[in-house]
């Protein structure tokens, strides 16, 4: 048995969905000529690439550039070079550091892997962080002032409004992981 109303309903839904995604797409990235930075009278705004053109092709995200840069890199959507000319060898370290164990927020998990796919050890060690878990006196206040993690997060990497991306491990689980009990 067929219901005659269904196609219309679906059609309406589809239209809504398409309209909505168009609005969202248009909203994500500003045109250069109206972004408040570029001089609309400059020749450049006619030549330079609009952010939407490049970034709408990459895995989406909700904050910062609205691009999931880790998935973009790991999924091969982009292949940013590691050196000025050709490629250089670099170490990708697959080690996590847990922080703020026993605190009032979920514990912080710092993953070395996604960081070392973009950055050299010396971008962080020993200037920003010591190579010993717990040795660096990091606080949230300092981070919000642009120190420690806040050097990059809140400037270039995803912004500090995304608390749960760093505070990502339940305290119970963090304590278990550190004690080594299952």
């Amino acid at each position, binding site marked *: 048995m067929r219901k005659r109303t269904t196609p219309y309903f679906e059609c309406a839904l589809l239209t809504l969905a398409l309209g909505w995604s168009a609005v969202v797409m248009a909203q994500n990235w500003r045109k250069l000529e109206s972004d408040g*930075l570029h001089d609309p009278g400059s020749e450049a705004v006619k030549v330079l690439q609009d952010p939407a053109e490049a970034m709408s092709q990459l895995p989406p995200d909700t904050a*910062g550039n609205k691009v999931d840069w880790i998935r973009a890199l790991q999924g091969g959507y982009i292949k940013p070079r590691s050196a000025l000319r050709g490629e250089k060898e670099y170490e990708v370290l697959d080690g996590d550091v847990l922080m703020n164990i026993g605190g009032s927020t979920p514990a912080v998990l710092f993953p070395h892997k996604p960081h070392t796919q973009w950055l050299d050890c010396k971008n962080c060690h020993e200037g920003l962080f010591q190579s010993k878990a717990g040795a660096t006196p990091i606080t949230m206040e300092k981070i919000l002032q642009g120190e420690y993690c806040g050097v990059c997060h809140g400037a270039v990497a995803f912004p500090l409004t995304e608390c749960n991306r760093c505070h990502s491990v339940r305290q119970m689980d963090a304590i278990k992981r550190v004690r080594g009990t299952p």
Partner: protein
Amino acid sequence: MLGLLVCWAPGSGAEYADVVLNKRSDKEGVRPVIYPHWFHRIRFQCRVCHGELGFVMRVGATDVTMDEISQGRFCGACHNGEIAWSVENCDLCHSGKPGLPTGIKGGHQTTGPGLW
């Protein structure tokens, strides 16, 4: 419906992580420089600029001058007609509205959405 439109009104402001460099440009009579992180990180990892090329991770901290760029340092390491288009294209880098202060958009040094 009006409520929805208001919610979806385009947020004002530049692309996240765009850098304005204007320590000397205004004074010397050229537009401030707009450097887009998003565009470059599609092509280069952070380590290239913040390692090999010596850009400090603090906007304004690196002393970049046009002379050095023309001699192949900083932006000029790539904008030399070989890796990217050359320094002759003044307007493509000097594209900002006059008077913009040096800083990063969306960063902790500005009042952008990423103040936090």
